[in-house]
C-alpha cells in the first residue's frame, strides 16, 4: 500500500547548475526537497517514482537523469539515462540522500485513464510500505511567455487540479479528460491518474508546499501522508 506520496513538477531547472549564476526558483527547489524529505521520513520500504514520457515502461532502478542533455558541461549520469520526468525524481531522491530501494516507471501521454488507474493499483499492491513520488506538471499554456503561449482554459483547469490536491480528493484527478490535458500541455495528466489509482479515498491528507507558475507552467508541490512528517 501507499503510506505516503510526494507530488513534484519536473522542470529541468530543478537542477541548480542548469540556471547559471542565478539561483532561479530557489523556493520551488526547496519545496520539492521538503516534499521528498517528508516522503523519506515516512520510512517506506521502497520508493516508486512515476512520471510521464512518450511510452509506458519500467526502467532500471539505477537509472539517473542525463543532465548534460539539457546542456552545460554536466558529468555523465552514474547510471543508465532515463526519461527526464523520472530522472528528475531520481535527482530529488539523491539530493535528499535516499539510498533505499526504488522502482522507476514512466507512463505514456497516450495511456487512457483506466490504464493509469490500474498501474496505480499495481504499484500500491507491489509492496507493503510503498512511498510514491509522482512527477507531474500542470498546463504549460498559462501566459503569452509560456512555452505553449496562452490558453484561456488553462487557469480553470489547473485550479481544479489544485483544489483536488488540497482536498486530497484524488479521485477527481482520475476524471481529467486526456484530450483537454493534451491541448493545454498539461503533461502531468497520466501521472496524476496513477496517483489516483494508487491511493484510497480519504486515506491520506494533503499539504501543498508550493503552487505557482513563474515560467508559464503550473507547478504544484504537495505531500500526502497520514500527518505532515518532519520537514526538517
Amino acid at each position, binding site marked *: 500500500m501507499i503510506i505516503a506520496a510526494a507530488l513534484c513538477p519536473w*522542470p*529541468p531547472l530543478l537542477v541548480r547548475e*542548469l540556471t*547559471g549564476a*542565478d539561483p532561479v526558483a530557489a523556493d520551488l527547489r526547496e519545496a520539492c526537497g521538503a516534499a521528498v524529505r517528508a516522503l523519506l521520513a515516512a520510512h517506506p520500504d521502497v520508493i516508486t517514482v512515476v512520471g510521464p514520457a512518450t511510452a509506458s515502461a519500467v526502467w532500471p532502478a539505477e537509472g539517473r537523469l*542525463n543532465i548534460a*542533455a*539539457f*546542456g*552545460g558541461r554536466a558529468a555523465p549520469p552514474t547510471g543508465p539515462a532515463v526519461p*527526464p520526468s523520472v530522472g528528475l525524481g531520481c535527482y530529488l531522491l539523491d539530493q535528499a540522500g535516499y539510498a533505499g530501494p526504488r522502482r522507476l516507471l514512466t507512463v505514456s501521454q497516450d495511456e487512457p485513464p483506466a490504464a493509469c488507474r490500474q498501474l496505480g493499483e499495481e504499484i500500491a499492491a507491489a509492496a507493503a510500505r510503498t512511498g510514491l513520488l509522482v512527477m507531474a506538471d500542470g498546463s*504549460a499554456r498559462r501566459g*503569452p511567455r*509560456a*512555452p*505553449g*503561449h496562452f490558453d484561456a482554459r488553462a487557469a480553470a483547469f489547473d485550479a481544479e487540479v489544485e483544489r483536488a490536491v488540497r482536498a486530497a480528493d484524488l479521485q477527481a484527478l482520475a476524471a481529467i479528460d486526456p484530450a483537454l490535458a493534451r491541448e493545454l*500541455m498539461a503533461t502531468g495528466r497520466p501521472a496524476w491518474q496513477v496517483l489516483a489509482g494508487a491511493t484510497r479515498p480519504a486515506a491520506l491528507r494533503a499539504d501543498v508546499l508550493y503552487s505557482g507558475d513563474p515560467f508559464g507552467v503550473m507547478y504544484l508541490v504537495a505531500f500526502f501522508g497520514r500527518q505532515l512528517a518532519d520537514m526538517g
Partner: protein
Amino acid sequence: MGDPSSDQPGDPSHQPAEPQTLRLGKHTFEPRQRVIMAIVNRTPDSFYDRGATWHEAAAMDRVHAVIAEGADIVDIGGVAAAPGATVDIAEEIRRTVPFVAAVRDAYPDLVISADTWRHEVAREVCAAGADLINDTWGGWDRRLAEVAAEHGAGLVCAHAGNQTPRTRPFRVAYDDVLADVLRRTLAQASRAVEIGVDPARILIDPAHDFGKNTWHSLEVTRRLDEMVITGWPVLVSLSNKDFIGETLAAPPEGRLTGTLAATAICAWQGARVFRVHQVHQTREVLTMVSAIRGEVPPARAVRALG
C-alpha cells in the same frame, strides 16, 4: 507537412568536399567572403523591432538603409517566430509578395531572401523575384525544397529540433545537440539536391534558439566548425537572440555587444552568411575577423611604415 524527425542522414556524395562558391541570385560569393543578410520584417510583432517596418514605406526605407550600410542580402519575413496572432497563408502572402516585388523593382540585382516555412508563400515570393528561401523551421513543409528547385532559388536548411512552426521549445534535450543539428540539416540539404535545387545555392543553419535552450545555443556556437567542415556554406542567425540575452542578463535592446561577440566567434570558425539587425556594426566585426585571419588587407596601413 512532413515529420522532420524522419530525416535520414544525408547522402555524403551530395556533400561538397571543400567550401564552394555560393551562388545567390545573380551574385557569387567566394568561401572567404563574409556575407551579410539584413532582416526586414513585415510584421507588427517581431521581438526586436516590434513593428518598426510593419508599414511598407518604413520597410523600403530600411532596405535602402541596409544596402547603404553594406548588406548583401535582404531577408523579408511576414510572420514572427514567436507564438502569437495567427497569420494564415493569404495574409503572409499579402504582407510579403507585393513588397518583394517592389524591392525587386527598386534593386534589380539585389539578393532577396524570403523568410517562410510555407511552400505556397515561397512559390509566390519566388515568382515576385525572391532568390533564396530561408526555411528557419527546418523543413517542416517538405514541398518547400520543390519550390526552390522549380524556381532556381536557393534554400537555407535549418535545424529547429522537432519544433512545430511558431512554438517554443519546452524542456528540449539532446544526447548531442551538434550531432542532431548535423543529422537534420545535412538530410535536408541532401534531399534538396536530389529534388533539383542547385547545390551551389544551398546553405545550412544551426538556427540558434530554435528548439534549443541557451546552453544548447552556446554549444552550437562553440562547435560551429563541425558544421563548416561539411563543406556546405553555414548561415548563422544570432542577432539579439534570447541565448545572448540570458547569457548577459540583457533585454533585447541590450544585446548588440553579445551579438557581435558571437558573430566574431562564428566568423572565425568559418560561418559565411550572417543574418542581422545591425548591418554596419556587423560589417566592421566581419572585416576585423577577415583581417586578423589574413584574408583581407587593412583599409589603410601606414603605422610604422612611413
